[in-house]
């Protein structure tokens, strides 16, 4: 098993004919993802690596039965694209696009909830269930099938950690990039809840960073509801307050979101913390 996505997801790509779209459709097909449609307004009738392109999500869904969308469109069109996917009945939306105004994200995150859809991102690398599917831009070669679930607010850092797991022979059930923005659709809590229920997940790795209170919220949740061992790394222990460390989300603003607060919360919830990202693999070897 896996969480959120598996080999059954039929994926359409919004922003299919751009540079990124073409490249990642190819990468996903290589990974084994069922990419069934692309959508680019005005480009209906073309194809990308043999995948048919449609003018609208509604037509793509009608014609191909796609139930999942990968959103790669530029930031200023992202809200419209997500709304379009949700209105067309898509049940899983993965938003890669970065620099989306957070007021837009706020709207589409709540609209996804209204629609009963799973929204991952924005500003995330996507999600991969090794051996089954990869929906996003994560490098396909770092994964290994296994029993560790990974949920992360960071991109490259996730690759780093997943890669070090795989190198040590520790495979993954699902790796989900939650996104580095202040407003994201799926948080640690939803991921933890899903991993807890997933029979093939034996341990969970959380990759957090400064900014917001997602880690503190997760720690509370772990205390109450999570029985599986949880490991964590938090980036930004030494980041100075007020500096945006690349992500709009990763900022210690108005006294909130410090690494100390997150570390303390995790410790209280009996989450094992790694000092260096690559230590996670050692910790898991030791405890699981």
């Amino acid at each position, binding site marked *: 098993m896996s969480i959120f996505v598996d080999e059954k997801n039929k994926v359409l790509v919004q922003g299919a004919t751009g540079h990124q779209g073409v490249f990642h459709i190819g990468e996903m097909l290589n990974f084994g993802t069922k990419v069934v449609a692309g959508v680019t307004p005005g480009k209906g009738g073309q194809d990308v690596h043999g995948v048919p392109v449609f003018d609208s999500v509604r037509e793509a869904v009608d014609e191909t039965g796609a139930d999942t969308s990968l959103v790669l469109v530029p*930031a*200023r069109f992202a809200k419209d694209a997500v709304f379009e996917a949700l209105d067309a009945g898509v049940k899983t939306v993965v938003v890669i696009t970065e*620099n*989306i*105004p*957070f*007021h*837009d*994200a*706020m*709207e589409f*995150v*709540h*609209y996804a909830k*209204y629609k009963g859809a799973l929204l991952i991102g924005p500003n995330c690398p996507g999600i991969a269930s090794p051996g089954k599917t990869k929906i996003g*831009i*994560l*490098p396909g*070669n*770092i994964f290994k099938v296994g029993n560790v679930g990974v949920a*992360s*607010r*960071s*991109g*490259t*850092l*996730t*690759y*780093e950690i997943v*890669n070090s797991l795989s190198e040590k022979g520790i495979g993954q059930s699902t790796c989900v990039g939650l996104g*580095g923005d*202040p*407003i994201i659709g799926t948080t640690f809590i939803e991921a933890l809840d899903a991993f807890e229920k997933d029979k093939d997940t034996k341990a969970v790795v959380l*990759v957090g*960073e*400064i900014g*917001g*209170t*997602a880690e503190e*919220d997760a720690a509370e949740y772990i205390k109450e509801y999570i029985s599986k061992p949880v490991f964590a*790394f938090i*980036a*930004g*222990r*030494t*980041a*100075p307050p007020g*500096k945006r*460390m*690349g*992500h*709009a*989300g*990763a900022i210690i603003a*108005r*006294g909130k979101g410090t690494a100390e607060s997150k570390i303390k919360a995790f410790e209280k919830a009996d989450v094992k913390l790694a*000092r*260096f*990202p*690559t230590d996670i693999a050692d910790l898991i070897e030791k405890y699981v």
Partner: protein
Amino acid sequence: MKLFEYRGKELFKKYGIMVPNGRLVESEKDFFDLGFPLVLKAQVPVGGRGKAGGIKKADNLKDAKVKLGQIMGMNLRGYKVRKVLAEKMIDIKKELYLSVSLDRSKRMPLIMASAEGGMDIESVSDEKIFKEWVNPLIGLQSFNIRYIISKLGLGKEEGKEVSEVLTQIYKLFREYDCELVEINPLVFTSDGNVVALDSKIIINDDALFRHPDIIPEHVELTPLEKDAKEKGISFIQLDGNIGVIANGAGLTMATLDALTHFKGKGGVFLDLGGTDDPEKVKQAFELMKKAKPKVIFLNLFGGITKCDTVAKGVKAVISKEGIDCPVITRIKGMNEDKAKEILKDAGLVTATTLQDAAQRSSDLAGGGK
């Protein structure tokens, strides 16, 4: 983007919220019709101006001239004061706190209000701050306003006026893509007006494209920062002497953490993000050289950004211009082996682990000694 107080007040005026009579002043003649006493306020994008001497009262023209001279040009928490706002002093009957911000956990706008206006909100006890969340799917409703107003202990007429201010700042918050709209204090004057005595507005940088009327204040960039900005390279300037090139925000932060662990101090940070263009890497490396760090630490996980792309960019610079500081590289991921070959060619040794690389960089930079 943090707006200067006077810019925030311009927006308040646009939304029908009263602010004190005032203007930016540069010299004596600018005071002619404002009347006295006046308040002179340094315009800088940081808080705590009052305690730092950036806000002064002036009783007459002579006094105003002196105080203006004291404030203009002073250094406030790293910002040189270049603009001063002069405002007619206002007779305060009552002070409130009012703000709209973002609740990240609930993913909703959060209204906060308190009858304890004028104080730093972080120092007001929790039970004296009233909170109401607004669902973005339906927007601000009468019941939200009623709840907040009912808690502030206001008279009927006062309640109506604060309702109107709240309605307007919520509108401003949404229409201008704000992270924060704060009025602290919102005051009732003895002649019955409701006036925003201060403004704190932060606009989401990602949304500036749709607000062409919001022009960034002139904030001095160093030549390097300017260069980075023009080249679209994410650039962070910290206190230390180790130059770091990494890709991705999380990895950048993790690198800083590792350096600090080994008592090293990060200086300039360049985040390559998701580029796979050797030219851009070259530009970044050139930029880094110009920053003259004591050590350069290249920490990379190759995915979309392939390791050999980066190695090629680095090599191009070194073989052309040479390099006058040690370069520690630590490279993992896509095409790692190719990259190591290239860097070896360029005379650079690659470390095996992040810890090893961070420690070596820190030691070379003189950290921990």
